[in-house]
């Protein structure tokens, strides 16, 4: 066990689709668990991160907690990977950057269809939203990028095996797409 590669994963401002795609490597998961051991990850529900070889980030950075988690990952992981469109370029959540944060909150909580108690939530436990959604490379140094919404299981498998075997990272044409 001690020789296994330690991997941590987190979903920031994403939809968990990229994590679903990790699970989508299907029976190769058996091969993967021979090679790696999961540290903090939604897959095992471990909440704190220890020293890791590889950190995988899904989602962009939209609030103060996302910034904190991302910086923790950078600090604890030798190699940090942006997984999927939102981590790579902000993705769909970054479409809110076309509006002010105030406009977004008012649309959702004041003027939204079906809102019957208009009130912008301000509980101190809710992480503060940033004025814009950012791709993760705008906050910390990122070592590898895997685009796609989500990247396919095959793409993730190609990448992880090449990375673990210390080979140059390259993909068959059909495995890279931005959508």
């Amino acid at each position, binding site marked *: 066990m001690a020789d296994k590669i330690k991997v941590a994963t987190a979903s920031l401002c994403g939809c968990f689709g990229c994590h679903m795609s990790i699970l989508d490597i299907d029976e190769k998961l058996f091969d993967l668990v021979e090679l790696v051991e999961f540290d903090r990850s939604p897959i095992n529900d471990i909440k704190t991160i220890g020293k890791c070889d590889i950190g995988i980030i899904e989602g962009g950075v939209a609030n103060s907690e996302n910034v904190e988690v991302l910086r923790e990952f950078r600090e604890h992981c030798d190699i940090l990977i942006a997984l999927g469109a939102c981590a790579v370029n902000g993705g769909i959540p970054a479409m809110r950057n076309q509006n002010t944060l105030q406009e977004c909150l008012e649309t959702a909580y004041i003027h939204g269809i079906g809102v019957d108690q208009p009130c912008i939530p301000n509980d101190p436990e809710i992480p503060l939203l940033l004025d814009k959604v950012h791709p993760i490379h705008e906050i910390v140094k990122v070592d590898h990028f895997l685009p796609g919404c989500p990247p396919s299981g095959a793409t993730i498998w190609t990448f992880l095996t090449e990375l673990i075997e210390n080979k140059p990272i390259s993909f068959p044409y059909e495995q*890279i797409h931005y959508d």
Partner: protein
Amino acid sequence: MPEQQTFKLDSKTIPFRDGDTIMDAALRAGEYIPHLCHNPEFTPHGSCRVCVVSANGRHVSACTQQAMNDMEVDNRSDAIMDKRRNLLQMLFVEGNHVCPGCEKSGACQLQAVAYYTNMLSPHYTHFFPKRSVDASHADIAIDFNRCILCELCVRASRDVDRKNIFSISGRGIKARLVINSDTGKLGDSDLTATDKAVHVCPVGAILPKHRGYDKPIGERLYDRQPVSQVGDVAAHDEDDNHG
């Protein structure tokens, strides 16, 4: 009879005629040089710079540089591909290119050329510019978030449709595509769905309405084959053109 003039494109000998650009001769010889603003039906524009090559050691755009006898052109070295990737990354961060939310995705030449150069990240800091969508026309929508200022619609509307519906206004980073109508709206222009200008956009900026997902994602022009093999999106029929 005068001797055939040729130049070297990487290691291949390419014949050319007087007046040919590097791009003209390469296209005729079936050699791919990545490009976005170039379309052989229109006067070269040289604005996207993606066709950058090194000709006798100087960086030039292949679509505007005249071919010269015995010229040595580097089209495929890592150094040239790095430059193209950087140019594409700048195009991506300057606009709002949200591929998962774009109905042109998979049949978009910006995407396809980025795939060709192995672009995996935008690298630069995003501008997230505030731009609008004009859906005032019954048959055509224009999303300015995706415009890369290639001016193909400007050239097609002026030179083929003879309507002059599109122009570029402003300079440098403030340059933007505008509609020549009294209100500035597409719906108040003479544009029709059959106009050439509607069928030359290499990205998802000008889109015919009501058919965005007729062809599903995964079965589109560049989903299985690279742009170097299938060519420009504008050269394919309308079904392919719009996914």
